[in-house]
């Protein structure tokens, strides 16, 4: 390899690190993505054009065609896909990366059977690539709904163990004997693919993002292994970066869902763990974190805060004011929507908010705010329940039927803070919490809002 290519790879590696780093901050993420992409482009172009051996034109044409086809398809899919379908797309793409690694291994295996180090590398690449590929496809299928969320396979444990043993035997055999058999090679590939399927199938749909992140980390490792094979630094470092960052990310995602990685992967086997917050009639709830809520609010234009009795119970009036001030300073247009019977006495919210010196003109009466919700990006409901319960409109059997409420459902997104799924004063379920636009931010209002403020401050 010439010095030029090496320098190109070096630059690409640096862009990967810098890009990944920038992806970690909302302000710089977009730029970071572009930088990494540019580095990748550089690496690809360099690999094709800067080398020393003779290559026949036909191969150049093939490479060009492959790249053209891949780019166009990839680009079109990425551009066309709906926002909500993106995670499954990521899974699909990741699977392709894994497949690519496995294919490389298939081609290279025959040339390196006699070098134990090399063949170890190749065999590992094939196994990991195959697992990633089939696992990602299953995850993709689960997310887009073509696969039932949790699939129970009879004798799962036995089959699973046999597959693992199979992989180990094939791999050990290949490395040890240096056998150059296509049969064994494809058998290895097949067991890898099977294991990928077995790995993902029993895991619940809600945990898919974690699984994708884990598989993604595996793809990175496969790339790194291929890098070792070719003594190619950009693949090595890039792959390891993705591998280690992916693991950390996976763990962070588990944490954000209040799970452990173990419980995601193995918990599934027990088959218990009915997802909390599922309600027969109303569907399931979506819970969010202070960090997510902070970012959403930070980048919103209009935010309406709906305080309720819980705000008073938590004595969170000072924190909510801090949040409001912070948002205002960031250029967000904030208002409080005061329901006439929020709290437990007339004017309860007024007393509370006056204590923390909220300006009177930030408080808007129900009649005045209701038409504005459709133009509101985010409603933050803090410790309110009955006063935002659509049952008052929809359900003649409800004790609150006929009571005017704050029509927060009309907003683009609703964040509800309360401690649990418990009912409010009227003692009834609230279907707002099960709305697809609603995210629940569980916790005592004072603690949760304090976190929210802290996260908000981290953003800028």
């Amino acid at each position, binding site marked *: 390899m010439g010095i030029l290519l090496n320098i190109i790879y070096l630059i690409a590696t640096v862009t990967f690190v810098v890009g990944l780093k920038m992806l970690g901050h909302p302000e710089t993420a977009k730029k970071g993505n572009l930088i990494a992409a540019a580095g990748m482009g550089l690496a690809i172009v360099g690999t094709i054009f800067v080398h020393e051996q003779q290559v026949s034109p036909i191969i150049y044409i093939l490479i060009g065609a492959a790249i053209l086809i891949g780019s166009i398809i990839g680009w079109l899919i990425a551009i066309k896909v709906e926002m909500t379908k993106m995670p499954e797309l990521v899974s699909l793409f990741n699977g392709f990366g894994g497949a690519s690694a496995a294919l490389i291994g298939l081609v290279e295996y025959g040339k390196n059977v006699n070098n134990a180090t090399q063949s170890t590398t190749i065999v590992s690449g094939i196994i990991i690539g195959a697992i990633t590929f089939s696992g990602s496809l299953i995850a993709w299928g689960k997310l887009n709904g073509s696969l039932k969320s949790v699939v129970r396979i009879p004798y799962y444990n036995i089959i699973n163990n046999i597959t693992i043993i199979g992989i180990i035997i094939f791999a050990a055999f290949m490395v040890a004997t240096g056998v150059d058999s296509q049969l064994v090679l494809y058998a290895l590939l097949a067991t890898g693919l099977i294991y990928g399927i077995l790995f993902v199938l029993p895991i619940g749909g809600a945990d898919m993002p974690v699984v994708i992140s884990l598989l993604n980390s595996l793809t990175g490792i496969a790339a790194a292994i291929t890098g070792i094979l070719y003594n190619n630094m950009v693949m090595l470092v890039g792959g390891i970066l993705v591998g280690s960052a992916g693991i950390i990310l996976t763990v962070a995602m588990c944490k954000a869902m209040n799970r452990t990685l173990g419980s995601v992967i193995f918990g599934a086997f027990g088959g218990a763990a009915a997802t909390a917050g599922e309600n027969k009639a109303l569907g399931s709830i979506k819970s969010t974190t202070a960090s997510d809520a902070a970012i959403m609010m930070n980048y919103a234009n209009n935010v309406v805060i709906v305080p309720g009795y819980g705000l008073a119970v938590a004595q969170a009036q000072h924190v909510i004011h801090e949040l409001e001030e912070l948002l205002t300073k960031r250029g967000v247009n904030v208002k409080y929507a005061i329901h006439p019977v929020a709290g*437990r006495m007339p004017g309860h919210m007024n*007393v509370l908010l006056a204590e923390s010196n909220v300006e009177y003109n930030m408080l808007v009466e129900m009649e005045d705010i209701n038409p504005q919700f459709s133009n509101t990006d985010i409603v933050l409901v803090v410790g309110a329940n009955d006063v935002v319960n659509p049952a008052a409109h929809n359900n003649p059997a409800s004790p609150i039927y006929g009571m005017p409420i704050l029509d927060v459902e009309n907003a683009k997104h609703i964040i509800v803070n309360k401690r649990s799924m418990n009912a409010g004063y009227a003692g009834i379920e609230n279907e707002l919490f099960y709305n697809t636009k609603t995210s629940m931010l569980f916790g005592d209002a004072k603690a949760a809002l304090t976190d929210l403020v802290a996260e908000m401050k981290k953003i800028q």
Partner: protein
Amino acid sequence: MKIGILKETLDGERRVAITPNIAKQLIASGFELIVEEGAGEYSSFMDSDYKNVGVAVEKRAVIFHEAEVLLKINPFDEEDLKLVDKGQILISKLYHKSNPELIQAIANKGVSAFSMDAIPRISRAQDMDVLSSQNNLAGYKAVILGAFEMTKIFPLMMTSAGTIAPARVLIYGIGVAGLQAIATAKRLGAIVEATDIRSETKEQAESLGAKFISVDNEGEESEGGYAKEASADYLKRQKEAVNKSLFKADLVITTANIPGRKAPVLITEEQVMQMKNGAVIIDLAAAQGGNCEVSEINKTIVKNGVKVIGTSIDPRSVSTNASDLYAKNIYNYIIHLTEGTNFKWDLEEEITDETLIVQNGTIRKS
């Protein structure tokens, strides 16, 4: 349909049932309004204010004669009933449970009467709930009255002429009035304690910064949010739990009521004798017999240096705001009862059912 607004005749009453602002809304809804001369005087509404929005100002007799619907705040009394004609509709508070004679008298007149105090405490009736709207103001004003009468100030002050300890305020009964009293006293800087027979009020009191004094009882809760009558045993244990705070208190506000009954006696004369010299008791239940044994309605009695002020839960003195809210409640109520400008008489409907005490001379509730 012509609605007549009467001037209140009760001694000390300063409110008016409909304010010019609400009158305007009723007129916009198609009603015709007439108001008695000087009805809004004590609430800072002048006759000209009514005229400006299209209400005719008339003498008392004219109102009784012309209006199909007669509005008052306080119950119609004998004098009023003399002027009432068959077929008229009366709307006011009636306290029908404790006033059987009055109800009979009304029935005898062959009229229909709705009672504002009988509006059920259900969610969709909250905007007609005069008890809530008025008790709320009463709670505020009780604290202001207390602060006015005391020879001490509320807040803690550390000054170069010494430190003034914060006033200690004790509140009995954490209903609507009690809660607002807590909020107001707390705002002014007092140390506030409160107690109630309903155990769910603990969290509510604390949400406003008061300390709740728990009486260790089995917490016999509520009947539709209202307190049941307390047992003698409860009252005894309540005294034990509260006495320490009572004897240190600078201001005591009592708001405890049991609907339809005499108010429970929570502070005996014996207890008053042990209170601090200079303390003030505001008994908002004095009209229902009083939570303090010593109190008498509309009187200030000084016992052992303790001023005991008996007053009613009606917030007469903040008459402007009280009238505003009351009027809004009546407005919502009338709109609820009518279709176009005619009464629906939908007796299947809970609010109508509960509040229509006398229908065309027949007593429905007692």
